[in-house]
């Protein structure tokens, strides 16, 4: 299950559409980094609304994605973590330290816009 990545101006939007295997997550990491470099993107949104589970591997991979993209000077926002998924993450002890999150796509975009304004 490959995750489609949409280019919208200076931003990239990756929308997860079904449960992902570890391999799919690693593929997403590679693909996002490639696109950020290719398009000189300023920001990335990863929409995880359809993700059924955020376990230790998924959390670590999303964190890695954010850090790698930050090294390219771009921001990442994770949007759409479902309430049940968030609850399970907290119970498991997982944190998304240093990773920006937002409720949905719209708020994620607003976050990126604010970041772009404050750094220009």
């Amino acid at each position, binding site marked *: 299950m490959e995750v489609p990545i949409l280019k919208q101006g200076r931003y990239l939007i990756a929308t997860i559409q079904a*449960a*992902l*295997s*570890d*391999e799919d997550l690693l593929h997403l990491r590679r693909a996002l980094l490639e696109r950020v470099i290719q398009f000189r993107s300023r920001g990335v949104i990863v929409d995880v609304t359809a993700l*059924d*589970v*955020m*376990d*230790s*591997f998924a*959390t*670590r991979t999303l964190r890695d994605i954010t850090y790698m993209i930050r090294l390219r000077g771009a921001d990442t926002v994770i949007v759409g973590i*479902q*309430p*049940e*998924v968030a*609850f*399970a993450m907290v*119970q*498991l*002890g*997982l944190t998304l330290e240093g990773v920006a999150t937002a409720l949905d796509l719209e708020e994620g975009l607003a976050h990126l816009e604010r970041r772009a304004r404050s750094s220009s």
Partner: protein
Amino acid sequence: MPDDIRVLIRSNLDIVTARQEGRTLAARTGFSATDVTLIATAISELARNIVSYAGQGEIVLRLAEGTNSRGVMIVSRDSGPGIRSVDDAMRDGYSTSGGLGLGLPGVRRLVDEFFIESVPGRGTTIRVTKWLR
């Protein structure tokens, strides 16, 4: 037990299958959406440990019948290298693979009953139960 659901775990794709089977069973048993996700998350951690450390094994899912409650039991079994120190492995942050070290202690927090038996050189069995409340 005729109701056992057995998922062979040999690759990361099987992890997705196991947690989907767990999700279906938990929902059918009457668990809330929150608990269904907790159960799926626990299965994901146990199955990934099988792939990462033992190479292969199995996840068995079964309906648990208590005196006045029902639940779901998850058994994770492998004949891999085993865990040298279970006490260490159950501590937050302990990992021999550069992971977060949250899988096993996290699973214990997600469920009501947790049992682990690991023999170096023989393998690991973990049995957890979550009860409906």
